[in-house]
């Protein structure tokens, strides 16, 4: 049996630190923006009454009834309470991509080729999912 050299990746500490600060920022932003939405400081795109009348509808019908944006169109509505909160959710969903970018840079510095390939492939996968380029053929 080959002698195994047990270790953990040094980059793990970098990832942990970055993840801690970014996810805390994301959660703080989400809660803050939700407060502005809930208290009516920022008017929502979809009123609470309209939302409650339509949240039981299938997605397609909901989007038609509320004229809710899809894809990245929500970025045009950041002055409205509900879509500022959407930004908070997008930040949380974007944290991993930023951490992976930092990992890629670190793996290049450390010349860890196999991990670099995997991290790069994951980074592209996340960007692909976020890009809205992927559509299921109906």
């Amino acid at each position: 049996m080959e002698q195994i050299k047990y270790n953990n990746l040094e980059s793990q500490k970098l990832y942990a630190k970055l993840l801690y600060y970014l996810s805390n920022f994301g959660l703080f932003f989400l809660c803050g923006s939700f407060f502005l939405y809930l208290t009516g400081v920022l008017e929502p795109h979809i009123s609470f009454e309209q939302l409650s009348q339509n949240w039981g509808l299938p997605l397609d019908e909901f989007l038609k009834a509320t004229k809710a944006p899809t894809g990245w169109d929500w970025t045009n509505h950041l002055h409205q309470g509900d879509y500022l909160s959407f930004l908070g959710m997008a930040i949380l969903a974007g944290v991993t991509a930023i951490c992976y970018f930092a990992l890629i840079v670190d793996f290049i510095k450390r010349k860890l080729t196999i991990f670099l390939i995997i991290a790069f492939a994951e980074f592209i996968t996340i960007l692909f999912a976020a890009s809205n380029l992927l559509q299921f053929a109906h």
Partner: protein
Amino acid sequence: MLLPLMLLSSPLFAAETSWNATDWWVWPAALFIVSFLIGIVGVLAGIGGGVLFVPIVSGFFPFHIDFVRGTGLMIALGGSLAAAPVLLEKNLASLKLALPATLIASIFSIIGALVGLWISAINPDYIQGGLGALILLVVLFMLRSKTQNYPKVASTDSLSQALQLNGLFFEPTHKEEIHWSAHRTKRGLLCFTAVGFLAGLFGLGAGWANIPVLNLIMGVPIKVAVATSKFSLSIIDTTAVWVYINKGAVLPLLVVPSVVGTMLGAKIGAKLLPQMSPDLIRKLVIFVMFLAGIRSITKSFGI
């Protein structure tokens, strides 16, 4: 946990109260309370919030299952992002182990999310029924599966060596450093295709599937399997969440009370943990999941 929801969601209640749109706040408030309870119970039973949240909320709340699945993924993502830094810092979660597993699961979680939204557009009852069947399967799995603290790994395979699937962590109960390595790598990684697909399809965190794959198939110590699973959800669910965000299937009014509720509940649960009987809690959760699974199936038949 379920009784007030059954009353709220019953046709009798709806008829009696003549539902008014101006009372919209009742449901997000109820969602916060239920998520808080799920957060407590989830920690005590050692499971993520999503696997309890999606069947309970889709079964007993008025929200369409598309929005519930999007919220379920956000809960799993939020919980995972909050826990992962500490788990990585303590070397309980392994980045080396998570890298290949999450890459495979992420790709399949995107496919699962797209397929789920597509099926749901045809008939959401297929998803609701499938979810119920899966939850009952998880219940069966929880009843039968036995984890191993330190599985024996006699020899590693070539893929495990190439990916350097090994590591070490300090075990405070034994006051010693534990060395571990993974085996049956191909089989384990293959399982992550199903894990990712189901996570995207049903909006479940999939920790219930990650842990046995890492522990029982790949031979990773249970503590590393649990921690790496929790960390992995922050990556796997990220890709699936983006699909739901792009399709407009996440609503802040559902997501924020749920995420905050489960996170607060998890903090309380962690404090209660030393005083509770894990066996009793586990049985309680299995019972609640069984009811939620049955409810999902009956709802898919319009009952």
